[in-house]
Structure formats: structure tokens, C-alpha cells
């Protein structure tokens, strides 16, 4: 069985993945990281409206985002910040930690932006809470 | 030559540093002295014998001293630190800063090496049969004093910033290199036989970067000069043809970047500067 570590190609849609700060992420992290609000604001993958249509994904629906480094289920949303074509955005948080490239190339900084990724609709999969997510990848 | 054999007893789980694994340190000392020599394991000062079984003989002078490291030394750093002659062979992996500030002699690693191979190197030869990490032949942070002389050969792949602030000598990467080979270099030669992750020669002021394999783009701060049939690296004549660029223009650089024509069809548009007869540009080259 593939683990969360290896990542896996599911034949999903190929996209570029950006991660970054967002206003909602900033506000919600101050409300508490165990809160539902935090999951709602941070376990998110934002798409262009055009891409949502093209990919046949609707906002609010769960999607699986996978890279060579891992795979995670988050909620799809329409981006308020206009993204280039076939590019998705995830706010910083433990959910992005799963899919980013840890390699620093001798700079101390992992590769958190502009990653090759695949997304696919995951209607039957559940978004893990922070506790579940941490349990899964850290075993605690 | 006399050979001293160091067999790794265990793999440290924290960084270990063994400046003493150098012909310069070993020559002229007894095996007993070597066994007791200082090695650091994280914040603990220990004796070399705690991490290595030591056998063999020591020579009177470094020139006569061969050192063989057997086993997993991937966590052991600074092997061959400041060595000026003699031989080190590592049968296994070597940790970071292999041959730092090396001045002469030869290091051979029959496995992989960590980052900062031959950093601040002033002479000698380092050969890594496997892959190397980032910053091969580079300078220390903030310093412009990168590799000055000598030869580094990486048979596998090398990471980013090969030859960062390099001032002389030759680095040969037989596999692929990461981004930024020749970053800020002022002299010397970097020869990448495989593909390059990009941004070759960035901010270079002099020296040569040669990429035989694929290079996605050439920075706009490099200007195309001409096509070259071949290029000499040491005694070898490397067959091309190559695109020859000079740069980095933004640094008033006179560095030369050779990019193999065959593996880089996407750079063909540069040929318009030479191929159209009657085009004024053709006379410029």
C-alpha cells in the first residue's frame, strides 16, 4: 500500500500548486487551531473559476491534492485572488505540509510554491481534522 | 605508501565531525594516538576509536599516508579537512564538507557525498563515484573565496550551486547538475555532462560553464556569441557543437557559457543571429 509519504498519481488533473498566507488563514489561526473554523479556512484548495468549470469541480466539494511528496484531502473553493490557468492555491497549514517538497537545496527553505501537483474530486473522502491529520503523519 | 584503515563501528544519529581523518594529521603519529584523537559527536567530545576501528600503519609524512574509511560515514563530516597531500579513500558514503579547504592530495569516495564537497578548496583532487549534494566547490556564506584550484569529479549528479563563487580549478559533473552551476564564479571551469536544472552561469563574472545536456533556458543577461564545434576541458576535447554565450552582462561579466546544441533544440532561435545571410548581426559574430 502506498503511504502518505510517497504520494501517488491518481490520474488527476495536473496543476501547479502555490501555498501562501491568506486573510482567512491569518484570522482563523488566531481563533484556535483545533477549531472547526481553522479546518474550514485552511484545509482548502482554491481554484480559478474557469478551472473549476473545466475540471468539473464545485466549490465546497472535497478534492484530493497529490504531489510526489504526499497526498491530502481538502475542500475546493473559488479563489478570490485570480490565479493563472491550471494553478491552485492552498493557505499555509498542516494540510499543505503533507504535499510540499521538503527539499531545501542547501538553503534551509523547503520548496513551498510552484509545485507540480494533481487534483481530483474526492467526494467520498473525508477531510481530516488537525488531530487526525497529525496522528496520521506523526503517529501521535 | 602506508595505509591506515578506519572501519566504522556505528552510525552516529547526530552530526559527527572528524577533522583528524586527514593524512596531514595522521602521518607521524602512532596508531594509539590516532585512536585517541578527538572526534565530535553532536555536543560530545569522543575519541576516534569510539566510532572507528583503527588498523594499519601510519607513515612519517603525509605524502606517504593513505587512509581508507570503510563503512557508513555519511554522518561523518569534514573528512580530509585542510589536507595537503596523501590519499583518502572512502568505501561508502562521506558526510558533508568533504575535503573542505583541501590544498592537495586525493580523496576518492566510492559512494555519495553530502553537500559542500571541496568548499574553499585550494588544490588536490576529489572524486565522488556517486552523487554529491549542493554547493560543490563553493565558498563559505558571505565570502567570495570559493574553490581556487584543483579538480573535483562527481560521477553521479550534483545539487544546486556547483562552483558558487568559484575562482579557479575544474569541477566535472558526469551526471546532472541542479540549478545555478557557476553562481557568482569568476574563474575556472564547470563541466556538466548531463542535464542542468537551469540558470547556468548566473551572475558569473568570468570562467566557463559547459552544459552538454539539456538546459531549459538561458538567462537574458547572457548574450549569444557564436557556435563552437568543441571545447577543451583540461586535456580533453569535448565534442559539440555548442552555443557560446557570454555573461553575466548584469555583472559586467566576461564568463563563457557553452550549451550543447544537440540536446537543446529549443534554443535554436539563437541561430537566427548567425544564419540569415545579409542580416547585419551575422557580421557581428
Amino acid at each position, binding site marked *: 500500500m502506498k503511504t502518505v509519504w510517497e504520494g501517488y498519481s491518481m490520474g488527476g488533473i495536473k496543476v501547479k500548486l502555490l501555498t501562501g498566507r491568506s486573510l482567512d488563514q491569518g484570522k482563523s489561526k488566531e481563533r484556535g487551531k483545533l477549531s472547526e473554523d481553522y479546518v474550514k479556512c485552511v484545509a482548502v484548495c482554491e481554484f480559478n473559476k474557469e478551472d473549476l468549470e473545466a475540471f468539473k469541480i464545485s466549490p465546497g466539494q472535497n478534492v484530493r491534492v497529490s504531489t510526489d511528496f504526499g497526498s491530502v484531502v481538502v475542500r475546493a473553493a473559488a479563489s478570490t485572488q485570480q490565479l493563472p490557468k491550471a494553478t491552485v492555491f492552498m493557505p499555509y497549514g498542516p494540510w499543505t505540509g503533507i504535499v510540499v517538497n521538503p527539499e531545501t537545496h542547501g538553503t534551509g527553505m523547503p520548496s513551498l510554491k510552484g509545485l507540480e501537483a494533481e487534483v481530483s474530486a474526492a467526494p467520498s473522502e473525508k477531510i481530516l481534522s488537525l488531530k487526525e491529520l497529525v496522528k496520521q503523519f506523526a503517529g501521535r | 605508501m602506508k595505509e591506515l584503515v578506519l572501519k566504522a563501528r556505528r552510525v552516529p544519529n547526530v552530526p559527527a565531525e572528524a577533522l583528524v581523518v586527514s593524512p596531514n594529521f595522521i602521518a607521524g603519529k602512532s596508531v594509539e594516538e590516532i585512536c585517541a584523537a578527538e572526534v565530535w559527536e553532536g555536543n560530545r567530545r569522543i575519541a576516534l576509536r569510539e566510532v572507528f576501528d583503527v588498523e594499519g600503519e601510519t607513515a612519517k609524512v603525509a605524502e606517504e599516508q593513505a587512509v581508507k574509511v570503510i563503512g557508513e560515514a555519511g554522518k561523518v563530516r569534514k573528512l580530509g579537512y585542510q589536507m595537503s597531500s596523501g590519499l583518502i579513500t572512502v568505501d561508502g558514503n562521506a558526510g558533508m564538507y568533504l575535503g573542505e579547504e583541501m590544498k592537495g592530495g586525493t580523496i576518492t569516495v566510492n559512494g555519495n557525498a553530502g553537500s559542500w564537497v571541496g568548499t574553499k578548496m585550494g588544490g588536490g583532487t576529489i572524486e565522488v563515484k556517486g552523487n554529491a549534494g549542493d554547493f560543490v566547490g563553493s*565558498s*563559505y*556564506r*558571505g*565570502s567570495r*573565496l570559493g574553490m581556487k584550484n584543483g579538480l573535483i569529479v562527481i560521477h553521479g549528479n550534483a545539487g544546486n550551486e556547483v562552483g558558487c563563487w568559484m575562482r579557479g580549478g575544474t569541477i566535472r559533473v558526469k551526471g546532472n547538475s541542479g540549478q545555478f552551476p557557476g553562481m557568482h564564479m569568476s574563474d575556472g571551469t564547470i563541466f556538466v555532462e548531463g542535464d542542468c536544472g537551469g540558470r547556468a552561469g548566473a551572475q558569473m563574472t568570468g570562467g566557463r560553464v559547459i552544459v552538454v545536456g539539456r538546459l531549459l533556458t538561458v538567462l537574458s543577461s547572457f548574450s549569444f556569441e557564436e557556435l563552437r564545434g568543441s571545447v577543451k576541458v583540461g586535456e580533453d576535447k569535448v565534442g559539440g557543437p555548442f552555443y557560446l554565450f557570454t555573461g553575466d552582462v548584469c555583472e559586467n561579466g566576461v564568463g563563457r557559457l557553452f550549451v550543447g546544441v544537440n540536446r537543446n533544440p529549443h534554443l535554436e532561435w539563437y541561430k537566427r543571429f548567425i544564419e540569415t545571410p545579409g542580416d547585419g548581426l551575422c557580421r557581428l559574430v
Partner: protein
Amino acid sequence: MREELIVRNGFVFDPLNGIDGEKMDVFIKDGKIVDKVGSKASVVESSGMIVMPGGVDIHSHIAGSKVNSGRVLRPEDHEKDYEVKTQITRSGVGHSIPSTYTAGYRYARMGYTTVFEPAVPPLKARHTHEELDATPIVDKACFPLLGNNWLVMEYLRDGKIEECAAYVAWVMNATKGYAVKIVDPGGVEAWGWGQHLRRLDDRVPHFEITPREIVRGLCKVNRLLRMPHTIHVHTNNLGFPGNYETTIETMDCVRDLASGDRPTIHITHVQFTGFAGTSWLNLGSGAPEISNYVNKHSHVTIDLGQIAFGDTTTMTADGPFQYLLHKLSGNKWINADVEAETGAGVVPFHYKKSNYVNAVQWGIGLELALLTKNPWQVCLTTDHPNGAPFTEYPRVISWLMSSKARARVLAKINKNARRRLHLPGIDREYTFNEIAVVTRAGTAKALNLKEKGHLGVGADADIAVFNLNPKEVDPSKNYRAVRKALKKSAYTIKDGRIISRNGEIVESSMGKTYWVNAKTSEDLMESVTSQLREKFEDYYTVQMENYIIGESFLKAPSRIEVSSEV
């Protein structure tokens, strides 16, 4: 309780008390010099050694935002020069921009016990104090930068000298500063627009004022406030050939403000503004002219800014000069402008003997020291780290004390520079007494530190004992012995406790920070404060309340009260 100490049988050099190498005992009780102690006092055997007051450095960049920017800029400066932690000391790094703990220890090892940081952007004074509070052993203070301050320029432009004085008093209080520092008056404001302002009568863009008016105005303010130190001036035009004229002009522009023999102006690191010539190609030494002026005028004190050959880091509040140096050297460059107040720059630099300009610079500093007759007008500095790290002081002292030592360097420097310099023809050699003046007594006097720089009763028991017998060692011939002895004191005593022995720190302490509370009339301060309150939000991006540093912010404040004329 603090123990009693006798520093016994040393050759004492205490110029402020007229003691010149006499063999005598120094008594210490409760951290002060006393005239006698009990029989149980511990003895510091100093026979055959030199005993001096602890060194007082009038100008050394050891703390604050620009120093720290320099540290961050230069890991390569620290890599090979480090200090390992001990039971008593913290670890740290050098070389030219040492970490705070290392700076304190290294000063103490050389017998220095008081160091003044000479360039503090008021807005960033908190930073300086944080670092000073992390600098062990030495006592310290800092000089707020006021020569490009908007409010100062406006008050002076409008002729409101008393208001300006009250404002300066307010700044001293708000920043816990000690003296008025002026750097490239008006020039750093012009640099805010990337412009250069070179002459004393150039106009500062948008402010309708000239450098001359700023220097004179602040000099008057300084007098009105009765500040302990004079204005401390880094002149315009620093680093440009021919700038010695600006230096003399700057000195002369406050000549009429002198009263009696008290100095009215301190010109700092004069070496850097002692250039004669019209270009880098014919650069020469302006030291004879400057020294000639100083010899005739008692209203001036200077410090040297001597260079030593090697690698160091230049850093000043003179933003435009640092840019020039970056362009000249091609070295990396930090610029840091500070709103409504000042700027700063940092550029690494390597002084080379073979370089014509560097060799001339080396000569200028020494000529200044040797041609200025009255040592009380000269302070020894390297403008650390601009000319050299302070750890080069023993070398500089050996040059002052030995023409042989100078000749050895002269033989190796750029030939053309040697020809241009007056130094080969100067045979003056400083005595130990004169060295004591330029490194402690004179600097303490210039700073008006009553309890420093001497060994009279009531002085702080800050003492340096050097293992060097002045009766046996001829410093002129055996200058290497001088260097060696001064590098690591046999004993450094701070506040009556031995803190360093043969270069090893044996006890660490935290020194105090002096600041000047200049009291003006309440009405005047009230009116200026309310003017400030109105303008503050327009000028600054912080609230006025948050700009003011309370005394409790300092770990060991030592307030000096002065009552002003206004």
C-alpha cells in the same frame, strides 16, 4: 560585601593626577579608589608592571542597529574567529564586528573598562541599549545622532535655539543618550533623496539650512544645555580627497563659541577627513594642516580613526559615504535610512599596504597623533571597526611609541604613498604617560567623566595592570614587548574586582550605562513637548509614547544630572 584590594608596587601612570610612572600602591575599597585600606586587603602584586586607570574608548561602534546589520552581513568575518564558552564567559565571535559578549571580554582583556558607542539613530536607541545591556564588564554610553534630525533642522532654521535645546534635552532623555552626535550634517538628509551634499554652505534640500548652521546651532544648544561632552562631529565630505579643508572649516566655524579653555567641538576619526589632494591619484595627507590648527586652538579635541592593514568592516551613519565606498571597492553594501533622523551604511573593507590610498590613510592617522603637540587634544581610536577592530590598539600604540615600528611598516607600504607622507620625517615617540592620556585620562576628560580615567581618591576602581617594566623595556626599541603586554593585561580590575588575569576572564559582570538628564525650565519643556505631540504622528510611524525609553528599560542606568541654562 566587596573586598578591599591593594595594587602594590606598580609603576603608576595617572596623568590627571600628575603621576608619571611613580612606584606606588593603589588602594581600593567598595569599588572605589581610597587612600588606605585595612590590613586584610588582598594584594595584587604589580611590581615591575605598569598600572594605569582602565581604558576609556570615546568612539567605538560596538552596539546597535548598524553594528548588528554588519554582523548579519558578514558571517565570513566570524567564521574563524570565535570564543568558546567557559564556566564564566559566554561564547561568541569576532572578528571586526564581534558579538556583544565577545566585545566586552576583548575590551576587558586589553585593560579597557569604559566604551562609548558613538552613533545611535534615536528611533532605534532601544536596540542600542539592548545590545549595550548584553555587553559585559565595560561601562558604556551612546550618542544620539542629531545632525540630520528634521526637528533640529527646523528649530535651527527658524532661529529657535532654546526650543531646539529643549528638544535635544528631550531626545537625550527619550533615548537615554549621553552626547550630541553630528554625522555629515544635512548630508544624510540629502542622501534620503540619493543626493550628495559636500560643502559647509550647501543647502539641505527642502530644509533651507546649511551644515554650518546645523553645527553652530547644535554647538550653541550643547552649551546651553551644559552637556558634559562637546558636540561630537563627523564632518561633511568624509572620504573625499581634499576634505581636510572641510575639517578645519568645521572646527573653525565654532571657534567663536568657545569659552575659556573648554573645548566646544570634538572632531571624530579625523584620519578619514584628513585627505589632501584633489583626486585619488594625488591624495596626500592633510594632517600637518589639521594638527597645526589644533595646536593653535584649544576649543578642539580630535580622535584618530587610525587604520591598521587587514580586513575589517566600515560602518557609519554617513549613508552617502558608504555608497561611495561600495562603488570604489565593489564590496557588498548595506544602506539603512532612518525616518526624520539619519541613515547608516556598512561596507566590508580590506586595507592593503600595497594600495596607495590605504597607505596614505595609514600615514595620516599617525601624523595627526604625532604632529598634534598636546596629547590632551588627541584620543586614540580606530573608529572601530572602520579603521581597524579595537583589538588593534596595542599595535597602534606601538606605532605611536616607536619610530622603529613605524619604519618597519613604512618599508612595506606603497612607494608613492611613502613619498607623499610626512611620517618618515617625524621622530616623535609617545611616552607611557602620553599613551595614558590618549587612551584613558584624556578621553575621560573629553567626556567629562569625573570618576574615570584617573586613580585619585573617589575614582571608580577601574584599573589596568600591564606586565611591562617601563624601567627595563625601551618601547622605542622593543615595541613588540609593548604590543604583547597591552594585548592581554596582567590584571584588569573593574569596580574593584579582578575580572581579567593574563587575558583570561575570571569574573564577569555587567557595567552601567551613563545617560544625561539635562534639565531645562519646565515651561520651556512643556511647550516643546506639546509642539512635539502635535508633530510626532506627522513625522514618525511610531507613537510618541512608544518612542520614549523609560529608565527601567536599561539594566544598569547611571543618570548624570545637568541643569541647563535654559
